[in-house]
């Protein structure tokens, strides 16, 4: 048993975080959404060697990729990091996104020079033949509709393509948690810091517990996926469900604790909250993910200490 990523993986995560923070942090997203020239984050990551990682081929690279996605998430980086790291350039695509029935892809237009592919929940991978304009909405500003060509089965690519975006969301939640904690310490009401009110302390404790639980699950899922456990796909769907549940708790708490200030674009929480939406709603929201989890459990094992969910049910004497 080893529940920690390697130090090498953690180190590349720290290096990426430091580089992105130095380049402006969430201001990179502000620049992209505002249409102004910002730092070239893709190039920053290239110089660190991020695009040389091959998570589908190496467990060590997969851990590093997860740490990089987390670091990118911490600043809501408007670069398709998880999508690029889920790809297989030798198979003809540089970025892979999981899509629902109506294919919409976050950050596709912002990186339209890449050879994009999409994969659906059944594992059918299709090339993107054209990328539509960005939606320019509050919650999906950098999302584009895409048109796709004929697909082929590539179920093996699906678990990692579902898992890495969960790590990006994890990074966004890390930042939301840190900001919320700091706000509780800084903001005074009724003559004392918000941190002194027990109702808020308890809510923070429950929120932190949710985040820690998701953090551990993300590592478990990564292990399951990159080591090719029989239940890798069902684990990845479960991880997505947990990511959605946890993000709901984190951002709800973050907004509630920040009050009106948290909705203002001068505050990073507002950006993280909005930019977390595509990952939480696409390819499937909470209910659809729940339904897919149960469906997947009828065919694949969800390994526990005492069984595999709906697979391999054996009548027992206790029954």
């Amino acid at each position: 048993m080893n529940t920690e990523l390697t130090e090498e993986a953690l180190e590349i995560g720290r290096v990426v975080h430091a580089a992105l923070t130095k380049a402006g942090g969430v201001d990179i997203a502000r620049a992209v959404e505002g249409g102004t020239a910002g730092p070239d984050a893709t190039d920053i990551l290239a110089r660190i060697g991020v695009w040389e990682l091959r998570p589908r081929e190496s467990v060590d690279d997969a851990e590093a990729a997860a740490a990089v996605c987390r670091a990118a998430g911490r600043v809501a980086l408007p670069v398709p990091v998880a999508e690029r790291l889920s790809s297989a350039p030798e198979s003809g695509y540089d970025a892979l996104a999981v899509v629902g029935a109506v294919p919409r892809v976050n950050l596709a237009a912002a990186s339209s020079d890449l050879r994009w592919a999409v994969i659906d929940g059944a594992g059918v991978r299709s090339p993107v033949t054209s990328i539509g304009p960005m939606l320019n909405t509050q919650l999906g500003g950098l999302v584009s509709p895409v048109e796709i060509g004929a697909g082929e089965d590539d179920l093996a690519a699906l678990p990692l393509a579902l898992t890495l975006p969960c790590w990006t969301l994890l990074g966004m939640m890390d930042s939301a948690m840190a900001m919320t904690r700091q706000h509780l310490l800084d903001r005074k009401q009724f003559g004392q810091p918000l941190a002194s009110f027990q109702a808020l302390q308890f809510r923070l404790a429950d929120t932190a517990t949710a985040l820690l639980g998701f953090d551990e699950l993300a590592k478990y899922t990564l292990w399951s996926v990159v080591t090719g456990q029989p239940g890798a796909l069902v684990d990845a769907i479960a991880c997505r469900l947990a990511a959605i549940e946890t993000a709901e708790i984190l951002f709800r708490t973050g907004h509630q604790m920040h009050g009106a200030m948290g909705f203002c674009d001068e505050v990073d929480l507002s950006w993280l909250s909005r930019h977390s939406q595509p990952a939480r709603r696409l390819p499937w929201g909470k209910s659809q993910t729940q339904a897919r989890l149960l469906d997947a459990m009828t065919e694949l094992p969800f390994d526990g200490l005492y069984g595999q969910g709906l697979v391999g049910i054996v009548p027992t004497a206790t029954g």
Partner: protein
Amino acid sequence: MEDAVDFKDSERSAALRQDLRGLVSDAVPETFLGAFTSDPKDLELAQSFCRLLAKKGQLTPAWPVEYGGSASSQWEQTVVREEMWAHFEPRGAQYMGVNWVGPAIMRFGTDIQKAEHLGRIASGDVIWCQGFSEPESGSDLASLRTAAIADGGGWRIEGQKVWTSYATMADWCFLLARTTRGEKKHHGITVFLVPMDRPGIRVVPIKAMVGPHHLNEVFFEGVKVGPEDVLGEVDGGWNIVREALAFERVGIARYARCDRLLNLAPSALGDRWDGLPIELKQRWAAALLHVRQARLLAYRVIEMQETGAVDPADAAAYRIAATTADQEAAEVLMDMLEERAVGAEKPTDLFDRAVDDHWRYAQAATVASGSIEVQRMLLSRSLLRTS
């Protein structure tokens, strides 16, 4: 290059798990739902099962060899905890001695106390109870009032404990009493190791929904104790309690029983499973997911135990997740029983009875061994610490 993440049991842990399952299957009847029932045979079974475990070196695997253990890792002790709790704790009350009374005596006891107690705990021969909570001191344990009044060369204990599990069957009590009244309530508390047959101790069982033997009042009426009964320093008991409870941080593997019952549900319900609302099946899947997360949080703390110190806040986060997952699983399982949730149709409906038992115990999960509110306090204080 360091090892990558790996969530598989080690070979030793896997072998131990298999061994324990075989042992449970051979020695524990399918009808067993814990040692604390109205049938004295259940307690007898637990006692003999403990001795069997001890003989195989599986009661205290992580203890040092000199005290009756086999110096295994915390991971193996975890396997024991998981397998036992999943199967309705056939060790009975022994987990308390194994998990924290023994380690506290190893850490703070005199050589005589170690010789007297550790071997007996490791061999499964002795049941301990903890004399902590009082009528006016629950979560605020340090406000306890049971007094140790100086008397000759020792003390006379006067006071009352409450909610004391296993007091009717315990041989020894890990008792907290106040030896000095000072300005600070944490000062002046002393730990006494007291045999339950000492004159002046009176146990009164309390009937409760968790079942017999779990809740008791214990009255101390002029109980004489001497310096040889003191664990650690006089007036220094609070530090021992804090450390003792640290041993207990991942004490009960609640997630293991949830995992087992949730996984049993589809086959145990048979045709009824197919007729359940889809929404309930989705709640079942979510409960399995949350139980997995609780287990992983336990492993996070165990890895910390293996490699260094555990922050109480990390243990608190595990406890919050594990106890709430326990209650979530209990509600889902009860819902799945439909009308049988209020009573099994036949005594042979073992799954229904197991779910009933689990639900009743789960109600205490967020109260026992430090309420969830105390865990939230511990965690939030750590999160909001500025230095």
